[in-house]
């Protein structure tokens, strides 16, 4: 099942001569258990695509469906509920609240959704434990390393019953080893947790973790990778002789 579907989505800002087309007729799907990477240079429309997919912005034309539900038909409150319960965000600069501990940051979306702090803490701690951060639950963001902060951000994006992960350059501020670890966590969330993920990045090494890579240029989808064949195709003796 498609957790995210963009059908002919366009987005423009301004009018007349000052009109800027950020996205043009973009169609994209991300199924349960699938990680899709969107690659493109700065200004290609990657971040706009993600904010529209996350229902934070409305498209100028076209349709967005999250978990099969057309966003244009749901109320403002229902959209906010969808963002709290179904969609998880991972930002490049983590966006953790500095006055809250790691556990409080992770359980915050559940509290905002009406759960008591005490009840929200349980899945929050479980999320931290899943990402190897159980010893850091009481630490504040400035007491954590960059890699740990990003893992807390991923735990927050996955807490509860989220089914769609949207990540904007999720490892841009990290070194190579931590960046790979972040991508491994996102992929595990898809393969083991059944989530769908859309990761936007300009980095080919990070995009290569995805099941499918979609290329964006000047607001248009220009190309995508084919489904990768089995790894053994690179290891045949004929190729190496």
């Amino acid at each position, binding site marked *: 099942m498609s957790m995210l579907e963009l059908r002919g989505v366009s987005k423009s800002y301004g009018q007349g001569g000052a009109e800027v087309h950020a996205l043009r007729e973009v169609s994209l799907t991300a199924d349960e258990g699938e990680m899709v990477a969107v*690659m493109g240079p700065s200004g290609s429309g990657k971040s706009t695509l993600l904010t529209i997919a996350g229902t934070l912005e409305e498209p100028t034309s076209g349709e967005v469906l999250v978990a099969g539900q057309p966003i244009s038909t749901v109320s403002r409150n229902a959209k906010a509920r969808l963002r709290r319960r179904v969609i998880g965000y991972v930002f490049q600069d983590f966006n953790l609240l500095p006055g809250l501990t790691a556990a409080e940051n992770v359980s915050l979306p559940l509290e905002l959704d009406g759960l008591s702090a005490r009840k929200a803490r349980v899945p929050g701690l479980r999320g931290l434990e899943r990402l190897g951060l159980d010893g850091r639950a009481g630490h504040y963001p400035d007491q954590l390393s960059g890699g740990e902060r990003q893992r807390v951000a991923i735990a927050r994006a996955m807490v509860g019953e989220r089914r769609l992960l949207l990540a904007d350059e999720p490892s841009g501020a990290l070194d190579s080893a931590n960046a790979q670890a972040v991508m491994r966590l996102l992929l595990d969330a898809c393969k083991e947790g059944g989530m769908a993920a859309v990761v936007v990045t300009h980095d080919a090494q990070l995009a*290569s973790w995805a099941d499918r890579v979609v290329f964006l240029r000047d607001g248009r989808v*220009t190309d995508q990778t084919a489904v990768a064949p089995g790894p053994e*195709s*690179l*290891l045949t003796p004929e190729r190496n002789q």
Partner: protein
Amino acid sequence: MSVRYAMLALLSEGPKYGLQLREEFEARTGEVWPLNVGQVYQTLQRLERDGLVESDGTSDEGPQKGFRITADGEQELARWLRTPPDLSSPPRDELVMKVLVALYVPSADVHAVIQAHRRYVVELMQQWTRIREDDAGDLNTVLAIDAELFRLDSVARWLDAAEARVNRAASDGTPPWGDQASTRNQTRAPLPRHRREVRVRR
């Protein structure tokens, strides 16, 4: 990778049979560089001729013939490990040539050419990443695949940079081969040393 020095490195751990050397070479390079039996024995014969390894003296030329490294072999291996490979001359890269040629061919869309190569490179990187994750416990394989991924990544980055330069040149109204009229009378900056040497050879 040099099979010659890989054999010396394996023998530096202790005496081994020919078949064992082949199996260990493949295992330690994560089967990224498979060897055939002929390559192994030819290399061992040359190493023996050069006094870098010695065999156990049996007349058996088959897989059970044993080899050990000599003192000269140990020295040669140490020298090789510390010697950087020659990276001073840029390789003649077919992909680079294709993008450069596309700039001059009137019917070619250079963006489409760049994207075709970019897609291929990213598809290869997807496959290598999957192999690395499947073999995450094997350090030799992981390191060999990391090297390949970094190499392919540099190709992808070059394609991005090339596209950005082509776009900039188009928005400046400069033809992709440069504004020759305005540069004809200007003094060119000296080329890097190896480029000048290449020109002298021509």
